[in-house]
């Protein structure tokens, strides 16, 4: 690993480093979805029925908090939250608002891979939520 490349804090099956796309998987027989990607279905225990899919680009912010007492590598205070992308799939991620705007529960967020911290001079990347309609300065 080159120290100039970001360290992605996710299983390598969960993203494409070239495009920044995020991936989950699910069992085609059991109607479940997972992130991170799992080796086999916890319901039918089959590995062959697991299919990878691209995480939708948009989700709904279910809740959030600003963490003031967290690891220094994430530069507290930082905002985290849960976003629902389907009834079967909720993601945890960093909420990136512009100009310190307070996120709104139930607002639409774009979901992407992005920078969430720095450790020993190296960028840390993870799941990022960007509220869709940013109002700068509010």
């Amino acid at each position: 690993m080159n120290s100039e490349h970001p360290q992605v804090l996710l299983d390598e099956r969960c993203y494409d480093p070239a495009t920044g796309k995020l991936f989950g998987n699910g069992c085609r027989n059991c109607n479940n979805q997972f992130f991170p990607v799992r080796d086999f279905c916890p319901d039918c225990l089959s590995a062959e029925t697991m299919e990878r899919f691209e995480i939708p680009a948009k989700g709904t912010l279910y809740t959030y908090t600003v963490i003031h007492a967290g690891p220094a590598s994430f530069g507290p205070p930082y905002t985290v939250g849960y976003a629902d992308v389907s009834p079967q799939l909720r993601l945890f991620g960093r909420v990136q608002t512009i100009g310190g705007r307070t996120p709104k529960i139930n607002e639409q967020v774009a979901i992407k891979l992005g920078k969430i911290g720095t450790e020993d001079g190296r960028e840390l990347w993870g799941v990022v939520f960007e509220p869709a309609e940013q109002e700068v300065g509010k």
Partner: protein
Amino acid sequence: MREVAVVGAGMIPHRKYREKSVMDLGAEAVRLALMDAGIAQNKIQAAYCGCVYADMLLGQKIFKQTGIYGVPIFNVENACSSGATAFHEAYCAIAEGRYDTALVLGVEKLTAFGGGTIPLDRDDVEVRQGLVMPGLYAMRARRYMEEYGLKPETLAKVSVKSRKNASLNPHAQYRDPVTVEDVLNSRMIADPLTLMQCCPTSDGAAAVILTTLEESRKYTTEPIRVLVSEVTSGKYTNGFRDMTIPEITVRGAAEAYKLAGVGPEDIDVAEVHDAFTIAELLYYEALQFCGRGEAARMIENGETEIGGRIPVNPSGGLLSKGHPLGATGVSQMVEIVTQLRGQAKERQVEGAKVGLTHCTGGGISGFDHGACSIHIFAR
């Protein structure tokens, strides 16, 4: 199934014991419980030790200091329910006839980690990306505030009650009374939860001794009967979860009431898992002490104060008595035993006959909580 009773209980004050080893903390609680029961060590047929951050064979290392060895010893980990889960195992073994007497210890030394939020599973996808326990509870609080209009001032009143009760409890870690303003003005940890709304870094230990109800008469004229010992785990989902409803506690409580043959209206006193202020409010509802969305009213009206309709956490709870993880479940039981014996002095809930303990925990993704335990006791 045989009836089971508590015949001995002991605990050390929860504090920061930087100079003492976890073995010393545990051994002192065991000594106090043995002396309280007036039972000889050679009558203990099995011993159980609950601890979260334990090195191997912690139970053996502690129990040998109190003359308990050469019997089955079990080391139990189940996050914040470790001590209560150890109790559950002992309870089942006695009820099913495997042993007649057993000792249960819960112990933890969190100052070993230096302070701050507790270390979580580094392989967990959410923890790797910056989730800490106060953050998880804060997100529950945010959602609850959105849905029910809960105010920060109301949340803060949970801490005010907690400190008021702890001021009457010599075993509590933080005993100075505080005001709503003090609570809201303390340092922000995870919005909306300020420092005084988060359980502290605690070291502690608590122990109880169990026997069959029949055997208990040899040791005490006032055995405390165990009406139910319930342990369950969280339901796993990677999808939608209503974070204003602690599903694991809702389900655990319903099971516990059914098995015990008592309902929420029969509970005279309860020790619940108030690791953060929002938690206590969620558990009022989950334990059916009130309906959905009514928890704010309970704390505002003083219904859960000592002397209220259903006193909750007369010990000061996790927020003020302290939360040495593995010790907490047993420490709650020591408080309830003390209350049911009528020995709680200034913080005594008058006429308490039936008491409940509830602890839950474990911050891992995909679960509301990893484990939950509910116990109901009666005199």
